[in-house]
């Protein structure tokens, strides 16, 4: 909870017989939540407006009993006596008031909930066995908790469109919809793309898209998260895996410099979905579709699964000891001034820090080191113009030049002219950095740490297979200077290893005097002692919500 603002007056509210204080403007449902009383709801969402149309959050309310001269009647405890309203009220569209009383679990409230559940279930199909929402469905949960267990409805259920393609990533089953309008309000209020709405009346009310439009916003999949039932489902995740099998790993999205907090759902070392994780300082409760579906390359057939070496023109797979030794030998075989290193701003702080140590150990000139910048258009909601998740981390580690990417043309030119004879590429495609394949073939030493096998790598003397964002631990600094953690959800394929381990072993092979780093925590510890922005921090201190760095 945030610090109370002295400007806003505090109001006394009685909830289930106990008096609490809440700032003026708090919604009753929110006040009850803060008092530890959960009120079931469908349409209410703390980040959206309250239309009050699901009627599930009914509570009994009352106001102080007044004497004829408008003074509250005080009870024996000195508190106002409450005159209860004869009928239940919805708690999501009402702000707290001085002396207000709320009963969240009275017989009348319980009866209201049972009644509302019965109405909601009248036309709801009983297809939980095929519905993707089963297991995280509010309707399922509340019907167990508040429902009556059997239907008294004898007529035919209303038929509505099923399996409607609302947009490229979202499917709609109108029969399951309980008309809470969360998706409509999200598209209007947060995504600013008002394409959804209800048509027809009464039992035939149907959620639909504007006739000339599609639900194709980059934020469309948030409606799937918001949907309390299985009406909106993700075309990507649809029927892939039941949610109760998924192991949930708290991590961050690496699609852009925003670094949205995520939960990665995986089962038996296979990724199934990513969903946003609430963090007020970063992404509220949302994330964009592009970032959410960014994990799909991880299962790609082009994944490198074993170290690879080119010996006398023949490509062979190798074990790690051989490969690291060969990489170190190749790089040390080139004079320090003729070496270049291209790293990636998609790497974690720990990896970039080890890369900077490698730069010093190999004696690579600072103008021969840089990262590849990626930019796009910011959308004003979450997507950042910087599409690299850790540009700030690369700047802090001293790997990126002050204008990231400005050294790349010189490196490309150096390779073309033969002035640079050795190249170490970490997690980037040299072709994207302006180095054509014909020039790569001229290199005397070309070592790559990479996850996917792409064409320029056929010129590499040593290729070391590494891990994707969901397969490793580490930290990143987002565009606003917030330090956040990645966590491992699945194992890398085959012999592929975490990047920081590869860099640590390469560093130890190049420079035997480097200290041992048995764990990634040790790397962070060394980094905290070297880079002032990380001083006093540890990987554990970052926590799930991340923390803002002191430096701008």
């Amino acid at each position, binding site marked *: 909870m945030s610090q109370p603002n002295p400007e806003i007056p505090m109001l006394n509210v009685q909830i289930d017989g106990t008096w609490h204080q809440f700032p003026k403007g708090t919604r009753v449902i929110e006040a009850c939540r803060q008092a530890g009383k959960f009120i079931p709801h469908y349409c209410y969402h703390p980040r959206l407006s309250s239309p009050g149309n699901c009627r599930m959050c009914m509570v009994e309310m009352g106001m102080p009993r007044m004497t004829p001269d408008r003074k509250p009647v005080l009870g024996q405890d000195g508190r106002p006596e409450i005159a209860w309203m004869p009928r239940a009220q919805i708690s999501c569209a009402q702000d707290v008031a001085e002396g207000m009383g709320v009963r969240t679990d009275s017989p009348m409230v319980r009866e209201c909930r049972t009644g509302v559940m019965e109405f909601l279930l009248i036309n709801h*199909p*009983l*297809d*939980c*066995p*095929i519905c993707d929402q*089963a297991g995280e469905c509010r309707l399922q949960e509340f019907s167990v908790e508040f429902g009556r267990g059997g239907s008294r409805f004898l007529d*035919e*259920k209303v038929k509505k469109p*099923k*399996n409607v393609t609302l947009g490229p990533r979202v499917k709609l089953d109108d029969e399951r919809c309980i008309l809470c309008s969360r998706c409509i309000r999200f598209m209007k209020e947060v995504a600013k793309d008002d394409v959804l709405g209800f048509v027809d009346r009464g039992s035939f009310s149907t959620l639909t898209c504007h006739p000339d439009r599609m639900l194709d916003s980059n934020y469309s999949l948030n409606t799937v998260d918001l949907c309390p039932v299985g009406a909106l489902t993700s075309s990507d995740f*649809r*029927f*892939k*895996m*039941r949610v*109760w*099998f998924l192991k949930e790993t708290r991590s961050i999205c690496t699609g852009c410099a925003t670094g949205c907090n995520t939960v990665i759902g995986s089962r038996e070392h296979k990724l199934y979905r990513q969903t946003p994780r609430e963090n007020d300082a970063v992404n509220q409760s949302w994330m964009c579709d592009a970032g959410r579906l960014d994990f799909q390359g991880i299962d790609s057939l082009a994944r490198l699964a074993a170290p690879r070496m080119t010996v006398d023109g023949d490509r062979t797979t190798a074990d790690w000891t051989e490969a690291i030794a060969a990489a170190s030998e190749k790089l040390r075989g080139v004079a320090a001034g003729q070496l270049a290193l291209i790293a990636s701003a998609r790497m974690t702080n720990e990896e970039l820090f080890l890369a900077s140590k490698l730069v010093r150990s190999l004696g690579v000139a600072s103008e021969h080191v840089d990262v590849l910048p990626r930019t796009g258009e910011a959308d004003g909601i979450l997507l950042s113009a910087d599409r690299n998740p850790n540009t700030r981390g690369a700047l802090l580690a001293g790997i990126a030049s002050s204008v990231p990417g400005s050294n790349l043309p010189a490196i490309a030119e150096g390779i073309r002219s033969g002035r640079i004879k050795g190249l170490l590429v970490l997690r980037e495609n040299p072709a994207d950095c302006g180095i054509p394949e014909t020039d790569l073939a001229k290199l005397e030493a070309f070592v790559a740490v990479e996850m996917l096998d792409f064409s320029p790598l056929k010129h590499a003397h040593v290729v070391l297979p590494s891990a994707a964002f969901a397969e490793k631990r580490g930290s990143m600094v987002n565009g606003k200077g917030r330090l956040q953690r990645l966590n491992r959800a699945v194992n890398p394929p085959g012999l592929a290893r975490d990047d920081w381990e590869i860099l640590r072993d390469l560093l130890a092979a190049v420079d035997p005097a480097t200290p041992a780093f048995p764990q990634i925590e040790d790397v962070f510890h060394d980094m905290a002692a070297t880079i002032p922005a990380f001083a006093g921090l540890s990987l554990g201190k970052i926590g799930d919500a991340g923390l803002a760095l002191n430096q701008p």
Partner: protein
Amino acid sequence: MPHIIPRPKLTFAEKMYLPAILGGLVITLRHFLRSLFGQTRITLQYPEQKWDENLPAHYRGAPTLVKDEWDRERCVACQLCEFICPPRAITITPGELPADSRWAKVEKYPEQFEIDMTRCIYCGMCEEVCPEQAIFLRKDYAITGLSRAEMVYDKKKLYEIGGVMDGLVNKWNDLK
């Protein structure tokens, strides 16, 4: 407080063991003579002779998949059996029914359904949990194979053993 059980006091005859051994031999001899003169017939000459027709209705043999009277596979790949299975013998790969399928309304079906019979403990929980009544324990008990791979039964084999069961669920009609 320790609870002390006193050692039983044995008589001399009991200590000698012989009377008990002789008693046992008498019983064996009695059974031998009775079966020799055809008075009892306990032994079944399995596998030439079988007890199959006498198996009770609730006998729990191999778990199998069944189809309904319209030849529709009942399983909708909800994966509850996979979840409940104590030895994790069941593996399901769910898939989406194509739009031109006769049963497209059902939307979901198991692309692959495998039961590892070397893991199955015939507990019957899959049958109990199935919301579509698609999986039943049949009376097959002689489940053998020459390799582990052969003992993993795929969908085709499970339907072969399971066959058709009709009249239980009629949920996927238009009146749903």
